[in-house]
C-alpha cells in the first residue's frame, strides 16, 4: 500500500489568483537547489552479483575513476557486505557515494542463506534512519543517509535464463529496494542471443512477480526517454577502464584479437543507457522512491509490529502517545515481574546457601568436639602414665634408699666376700 499522495493544489477552498506583475518567487526552485548544493548529496549503490562478474569494473567505468579495490577471493565462508564511501565532486556538486559490494555471493556450495546478509544490511540502514527520525533531539538534515537507493543485480551471461539464486534473491529484495537488473560481461553474447535472453529474463521476472524499478514516465520532460529505456531492460553492459585507440580517437574498450568492444558505443552494449538512466536522468527519483516508498513501508511494518496503530478497533484515531504510554506500562510491568522473579530466585539461593553453610558449621563444630574429646583422652592417658611413672620413681627411690642404708650397714661383708 503506497503512501497516499496529497495534491496540495487541488483543494477547492483555494482560489487561483493572477499576478499583476513580477513578484519573484520563480526563483524558489533555485533557492532550494542552491541549499541542496551546500548540503551535498548522498547516493548509495548496492552491487549484487557473483564474484568476478565485473561489479568493481563497472563502478569504475560508470564514475570514470579508479576506486581502490583488491580482487575478492572465492573462498569466503558466507556472504558479507562491504560498503565503501567516496567523496566525488563535479563542478559545484558534492556527492557522497557509497558503493556496497556483496563479497562471496554465489561462491558457497549451499546458497540457501545467501540473500540474508543483503536483506539484513538494507534493513539495518532503514533502522538507523528510523532511529534518528524518532530521536527526541535529532538532526535529520545533517544525517549521513546510508539507505540503499539502487540495487544493481548482475546476471551472469549464460544466454539461457535466470538462475534460481537470482530469482530468489531478487524476490526477497524487490519490496525493499529499487532493483535494476543488468547482464554483465555482455560481450560474450551475440546480438541475437542477447535479444532472446533479455526477453526470457523479463518474462521470468514477470511470471515470478518480481518488481523491478520502472523509470518514471509521469514527468513530460523525461517520460519519453524513460519509457523507451524501460523497453531495453535488462541492460547488457560491458565495463572497462582501459583505453584503446580506435581510428583517431581513444576510447574505453576491451581489446580482443578479433576486434574491439567499445564501452560507450551504443551498438556494442547498453552501458551508455545505464549511465544515462542511473545518473543523468533518474538519480533524484531513485532517492525519492527509496524514501517515500521503501522506507515508509519499512517504517510502517516496524511500527505496526511494535503494536502502534493509527486507529483503534472503533476507528477512533489513537495518538502515538497513547500507544506509547500503553506499551511503556506493559514494558515496565514486564520489567517489574522479571525483577520480582530475580529477587525470588536470589532469596531462595540465599536460603539454600545459608542452610548449606549451617550444615558445614555444624560439621565443623562436631569435628572440633570430637577432636577435643580425643585430646582430653590423650591428656588423661598421659597424666596416668605420668602418675605411674612418678609412682615407679618413688618406689625406685625408696628401694634405692633402702638398698643404700642396707649397704652402709654391711659394707665389709661385701668386701670380705670379695676377699674370700
Amino acid at each position, binding site marked *: 500500500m503506497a503512501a497516499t499522495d496529497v495534491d496540495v*493544489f487541488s483543494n477547492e477552498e483555494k482560489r487561483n489568483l493572477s499576478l499583476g506583475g513580477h513578484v519573484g518567487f520563480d526563483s*524558489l526552485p533555485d533557492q532550494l537547489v542552491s541549499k541542496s548544493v551546500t548540503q551535498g548529496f548522498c547516493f548509495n549503490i548496492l552491487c549484487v552479483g557473483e564474484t568476478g562478474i565485473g561489479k568493481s569494473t563497472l563502478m569504475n567505468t560508470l564514475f570514470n*575513476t579508479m576506486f581502490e579495490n583488491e580482487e575478492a577471493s572465492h573462498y569466503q565462508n558466507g556472504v558479507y557486505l562491504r560498503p565503501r564511501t567516496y567523496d566525488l565532486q563535479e563542478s559545484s556538486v558534492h556527492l557522497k557515494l557509497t558503493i556496497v559490494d556483496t563479497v562471496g555471493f554465489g561462491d558457497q556450495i549451499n546458497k540457501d542463506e545467501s540473500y540474508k546478509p543483503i536483506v539484513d544490511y538494507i534493513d539495518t540502514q532503514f533502522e538507523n534512519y528510523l532511529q534518528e527520525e524518532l530521536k527526541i533531539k535529532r538532526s535529520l538534515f545533517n544525517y549521513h543517509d546510508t539507505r540503499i537507493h539502487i540495487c544493481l543485480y548482475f546476471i551472469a551471461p549464460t544466454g539461457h535464463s535466470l538462475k534460481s539464486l537470482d530469482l530468489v534473491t531478487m524476490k526477497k529484495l524487490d519490496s525493499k529496494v529499487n532493483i535494476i537488473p543488468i547482464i554483465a560481461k555482455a560481450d560474450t553474447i551475440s546480438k541475437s542471443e542477447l535479444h532472446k535472453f533479455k526477453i526470457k529474463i523479463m518474462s521470468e521476472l514477470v511470471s515470478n512477480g518480481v518488481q523491478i524499478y520502472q523509470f518514471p514516465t509521469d514527468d513530460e520532460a523525461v517520460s519519453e526517454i524513460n519509457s523507451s529505456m524501460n523497453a531495453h531492460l535488462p541492460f547488457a553492459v560491458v565495463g572497462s577502464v582501459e583505453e584503446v585507440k580506435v581510428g583517431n580517437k581513444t576510447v574505453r574498450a576491451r581489446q580482443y584479437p578479433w576486434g574491439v568492444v567499445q564501452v560507450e558505443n551504443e551498438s556494442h552494449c547498453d552501458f551508455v543507457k545505464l549511465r544515462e538512466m542511473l545518473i543523468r536522468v*533518474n538519480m533524484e*527519483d531513485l532517492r525519492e522512491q527509496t524514501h517515500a516508498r521503501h522506507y515508509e513501508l519499512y517504517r510502517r511494518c516496524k511500527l505496526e509490529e511494535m503494536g502502534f496503530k*493509527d486507529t483503534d478497533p472503533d476507528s477512533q484515531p489513537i495518538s*502515538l502517545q497513547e500507544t506509547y504510554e500503553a506499551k511503556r506500562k506493559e514494558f515496565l510491568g514486564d520489567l517489574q515481574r522479571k525483577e520480582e522473579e530475580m529477587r525470588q530466585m536470589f532469596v531462595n539461593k540465599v536460603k539454600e546457601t545459608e542452610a548449606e553453610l549451617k550444615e558445614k558449621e555444624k560439621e565443623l563444630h562436631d569435628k572440633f568436639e570430637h577432636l577435643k574429646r580425643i585430646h582430653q583422652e590423650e591428656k588423661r592417658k598421659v597424666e596416668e602414665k605420668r602418675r605411674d611413672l612418678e609412682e615407679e620413681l618413688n618406689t625406685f627411690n625408696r628401694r634405692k634408699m633402702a638398698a643404700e642404708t642396707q649397704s652402709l650397714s654391711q659394707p665389709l661383708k661385701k668386701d670380705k666376700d670379695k676377699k674370700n
Partner: protein
Amino acid sequence: REEERGMSERGGIGGADLFGYVGIESVLDQMRRKTVKAGFEFNIMVVGQSGLGKSTLVNTLFKSKVSRKSCTPNYEEKISKTVRLHAVSHVIEEKGVKMKLTVIDTPGFGDQINNQNCWEPIVKYVNEQYEKYLREELNVNRKRRIPDSRVHCCIYFLPASGHSLRPIDVEFMKRLGKIVSIVPVIAKADTLTLEERQEFKERIRQDLEANGIHVYPQRELDEDPEDRILNDRIRDSIPFAVVGTDKEHQVNGHKVLGRKTKWGIIEVENVAHCEFANLRDLLIRSHLQDLKDVAHNVHYETYRVRRLNESNMNLSELVLSSWPLQNKMDKCETESHL
C-alpha cells in the same frame, strides 16, 4: 550532449580523480524539475493594529488581491472584541512555479483598551500548526507529502511613531520570537523623514537587543562566514520602513506603483523612497526557502523536543528494544541495571 560538455570537467575524489565527465551535476536539474512539479507552500502571518496597512502591504508584496479587505469599496472594518485569526489560501503561479500562499491575518490585535495577553491566541495558533504537523509525522501511515500549515514568517507592523518600541511590541516579539521567525517592519513609513527613519530604526534595534529579542535572520543560525556577512547587512537595515499601495501612477513616462499626495508621488518600489523593495527581495526573492527551512529545522524541532519531553516519549529507545538482532543484548543490559 556529451560532446557539447566535453571531457574537460575534472572532479575530485578522496584519493583519485574523475577522468572525465560523469554527469553527476545533472542531479540539480532533476531536483529542480521535481520541486517545480510538486509546487511550494508558504504561510505568512501579519500582525499589527488595525489601520497600519497590513492587507495593503500583502497585496503589494504579491502583486495581487490576496486580501480582499483593502479592495472592497466602503469596507468598514469592525473592531472585533477579541483577537481572531483568519487564514486565507491562494494559489499563485509565476513562470511555471506554483505556490500555495496562505496569509494569516490577526484582526483585533492591539485594538482593545486593555490588550493584556492579546498575543495568546496567536501563540496558540502557531503551536497548533506545529502540533498538527507533528501528529501527521508520527502517524504509522503517513502521507507522501505532509500538508504544511506552519507559520513560516510573521511580519510585525510597528506604527511609525518615531520614538521607540512600545510595551505591547516588546511583549509580543519576545514571546513569538522564540517560536516563529519575526520580520518587523515600520508601517506607513511615508510619515518619517529619512533622518527620523534612521534614528527610529537605530532605537528599535537597541530596544530589541536590550530585550533579548531575536528577529529574522537570527544571528545564531548563521552557518558560515559568508552567511554572516550577508545576514549582517540585512540585520543592519531592519526593520524595513515600508509603504504599500496597489495604485499605479505615471512617473517620467513609466507606470509605477505609488501613493499620490499633494507634495509628490511616493514610489513604492523606489529604494530611495522606501524600503519595500528590500523587504520584498528578502522575503521572496532570496530568503523564502531559508524562512521555510528555519521554521522546519529550528522552530518545529524545538517544539517537537519540548512536546516529546513533556510526554516523556522516547520512541527510539522503544524501537531499539524491539529490534531482534540487538534484542538480547539490550535486554541483558537493562536487566543488569536492576
